[in-house]
């Protein structure tokens, strides 16, 4: 028995030596992976991908894909901006490039991070609470925000759009829009804002705010449908706005607004969550929860914006779609027409990015960050 005791105590000490001590924490290094063959044609040099990162985790991150090398590099922000305390921030929501600047909208860090297009180094941080999406017109950037005047009712705050000067990167003006505004498009000196009312379940907002950019006032509210979310505009001035529905009785839908009359023109009865418009084709996908099967129903499609008819109920043609758990980001390279779809998995773990040929065949797939979502193409000046 004595022997057993000695052995046990010895074992305890051996176990302790396996345990390790703290190390000095370092910045998050990027990771390079060759995923595709290098190509030298075209003006698009690559793209930035914004991983949203789960709320509270402070793990929004930026990946970059370089067409010239065929390398996909994850998490470049920390390495390029080592002095920024706590890195990129919490919950990335949008990324877009305008001029030589990249605008990353970081929702729960209440800021728009402006970085240089080529070096990814911080130019400026613009504080905007609960910011959602960004769009541009002339020398201004427009950022939608859920924030609003404090009301007695906790979910009654009316959101706003902030106008930012793209040279000074200062907020110049702001205008109140509808409840929980999401994506925006600009046409004819007017800004169209999709209001979701997502905090107001089940009394969603159902309007698109029309803002005159000269006076920066709301000149109209177009009644469209509940829980509006994404927006695209085609070359003929038709705006496509998606509704997420109420997840129960009213399904997700796609509406068309005519910018000549600023009226709702069509209801296409297609479930759409995210979309991307290239030339005259609108690529879209939808994820809807089914209470019957306790699982998600995922659909894809391509709509011809000239005829408003679906020309394909598939984007992916080789069966790879069955591997994608939750399609979350969709982007089509306007030059090569290659299709990028991100898989957010369960929003908690590391997600994937898939690249498909214009015909919908898998070209490559690689690991991105947590909730890979938004893609912005880097074009040669």
């Amino acid at each position, binding site marked *: 028995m004595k022997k057993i005791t000695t052995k046990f105590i010895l074992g305890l000490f051996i176990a302790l030596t396996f345990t390790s001590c703290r190390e000095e924490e*370092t910045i998050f290094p990027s990771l390079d992976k060759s995923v595709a063959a290098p190509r030298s044609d075209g003006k698009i040099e690559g793209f930035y991908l914004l991983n949203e990162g789960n709320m509270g985790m402070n793990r929004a991150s930026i990946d970059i894909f370089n067409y010239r090398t065929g390398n996909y590099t994850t998490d470049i922000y920390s390495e390029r901006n080592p002095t920024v305390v706590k890195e990129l*921030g*919490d919950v990335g929501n949008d990324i877009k490039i305008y001029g030589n600047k990249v605008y990353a909208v970081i929702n729960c860090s*209440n800021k728009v991070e402006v970085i240089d297009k080529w070096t990814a180094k911080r130019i400026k941080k613009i504080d905007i609470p609960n910011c959602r999406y960004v769009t541009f017109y002339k020398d201004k950037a427009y950022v939608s925000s859920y924030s609003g005047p404090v009301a007695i009712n906790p979910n009654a705050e009316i959101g706003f759009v*902030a106008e930012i000067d793209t040279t000074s990167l200062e907020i110049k003006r702001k205008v109140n829009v509808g409840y929980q505004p999401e994506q925006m498009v600009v046409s004819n000196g007017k800004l169209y804002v999709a209001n979701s009312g997502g905090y107001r379940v089940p009394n969603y907002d159902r309007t698109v705010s029309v803002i005159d950019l000269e006076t920066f006032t709301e000149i109209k509210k177009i009644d469209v449908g509940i829980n509006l979310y994404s927006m695209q505009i085609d070359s003929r001035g038709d705006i496509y706005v998606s509704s997420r529905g109420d997840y129960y009785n009213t399904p997700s839908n796609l509406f068309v607004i005519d910018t000549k009359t600023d009226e709702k023109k069509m209801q296409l009865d297609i479930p759409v969550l995210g979309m991307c418009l290239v030339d005259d084709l609108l690529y879209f996908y939808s994820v809807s929860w089914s209470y019957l099967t306790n699982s998600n129903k995922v659909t894809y499609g391509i709509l011809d914006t000239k005829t408003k008819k679906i020309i394909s109920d598939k984007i992916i043609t080789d069966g790879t779609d069955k591997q994608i758990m939750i399609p979350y980001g969709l982007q089509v390279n306007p030059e090569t027409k290659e299709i990028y779809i991100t898989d957010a998995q369960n929003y908690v773990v590391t997600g994937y990015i898939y690249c498909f040929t214009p015909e919908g065949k898998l070209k490559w797939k690689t690991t991105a960050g947590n*909730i890979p979502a938004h893609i912005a193409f880097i074009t040669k000046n």
Partner: protein
Amino acid sequence: MYNRNKVLLFGLTLFTPFLLYSQASNDSIRKLKEVILKAKPYQEVIPVQSLSGKLLENLASHNVADALRYFAGTQIKDYGGLGGLKTVDVRNMGTHHVGVFYDGVQLGNAQNGVTDLGKYSLDDMESLTMYNGQKSEIFQSAKDFAAASTIYLRTKRPVFENAKKTNLLVRFKTMSINYFDPSFRWEQKLSNKVSMSVSSEYIKSNGQYKFRYKRNNLDGSVAYDTTATRHNSDIEALRIESGFYGKLNNGSWDAKVYYYDSDRGAPGAIVENKFSDGFRQYDKNFFTQASLVKDFSKKYKFQAKVKYAYDYTHYVARDTTNILGEIVTEGAQSDDSYYQQEIYFSAVNMYNILPTWDVSLSTDFQYNKLNATRKGIQTQFSFPQRYTALFSLASSFRLGQFKALGSVVGTYVQEEVRYNAKAPDKKEFTPALFIGYTPFKDYDFNLRAFAKRIFRMPTFNDLYYTMVGSSTLRPEYMNQYDVGFTYNLPMVNNGFLDKLSIQVDGYYTNTKDKIVAAPTGNLFRWMMTNMGQVKGKGIESVLNVGMHIGKVNLATNLTYTYSESRDYTKFAGLELSSYGDQIPYTPWHSGSAILNAGYESWNFNYSFIYVGKRYNGNVNNIKVNEVQPWYTHDLSMQKSFAISNYLIKGTIELNNVLNQQYEVIYNYPMPGRTLKFIISIEL
């Protein structure tokens, strides 16, 4: 049944160290009582860990959660700050599978199933005991049988020396973080058979402490190094507790009332550009409970318990900021109040068929109700009510060197809702079998093994939370298997070693139909499902040594835990990118040490906690998700003085001696080195 002498002897062996260190109180009657109370037959059939007496008193821990860290196999999720949430997880099976019992009756939370153990003070605690599986006896309520692990918090009972009729204790604590904590405890002997106690504690703190974030470049130079103050971690809390304790012919009864009221900040994650937030939580918790135990004959014992609880929680999120000179909201706003009520009855009957064979039948009934008012939320709240009936049939049997204990718990649940769909009725049967074997007559060496199947009901939030809850959820099932031994070294009368005991257990757990949130197309919208599957295994070891060198008494408690718990959840038949990875915040290696030395009226305590490398909530076991190990050293020194009739105790504590800047939960920084002073006066 053991004969009385054996029981006493066994108890003495088990609790010697605590007896040895309670010399200051010089209360032999009390010691004897405790021993009788605690020495239960079949103790060795189930892995048990306990902290009590001086060891608990001098631990430099002030709430239940902090003390439970010293048990092998437990992990505390600590969100930092004085008002922060602290929950306990045993064997990585999930907080929901731990039953926490306060003076014999379970603390419940039908709304979210989480018990915040940071709220329970150690000041009036006599002992903390944790059992893997269930308590080693069959004379207990059905709820005691119905959890995967059970933790018993036992508050102090009045003990009166000689002809004393009143005990009064006044205590004051303060620390280097703004902190003001007066408390008192009054015990009164009402008659020979009835005594009472009243205790109360008030805590006020602004909760502000410094934390530091530092990262280096890969070449070793400093990338950033920033120190900031933790905000919104303040607390103001009042606890009032009163108990009555009575003796009967061949029995006893007790009754208690508990009230807790707090107003606290719920500090959020520290993220880039947002180092403070304004999430507030207001609590009012009230419960009253009573129990009665009586031996009606030599063969028949009866026990009854009753409880009523009312819990009010009010959450307010009202962060604001300034943009272009206008005050606007920052994050999502909320102002929600929840009102929970619980009524509980239990009756236990035990019959002694043969001296070696007992059977018991327990029947419990519980009613839960949840009401809510939620400002600005326009969906209908379900207003759920739940009726739970539990019964358990258990038997213990001894044959030579073998002991066996078996139980089966039946649970019947029925719910009602005012709005929305209600969950269907549920009927569950869960068995457990425990076997003990003492192979050597000459050694106090006990082998044990158990298998237990258990389930947890979906909480009201799981079933009915707006846009997330799913009323079709099934219970979550868990199978737990354990093999282990306890060895108590024989004591040598003239040696310096007073006690040495070793306990080692290996376990395997398998959770099926685990209730997890499934993703939908909208990030802000999840659906609760039964998709999860987790398999875990581990080894827990405890070494307990008591010795004396001259007049110095030493007690040591060392633990080491190895644990593995891997997630095999699939969504729609697909493996997640984290398939097979260790679940979040589960260290492979963890351990603790307590060293306590007593010399006359001095007491010195050193305690150490180690939690090894683990991964954060992003799950994948990759470098970017890694959370560093943390380890803290705490020191405490206590001196008692007697001035006329007063016994004065002064304590100085130094927590986190090496000022380690660590996080238990990613982005929730913990306090660095803090100094604490405690003075108490006993009359």
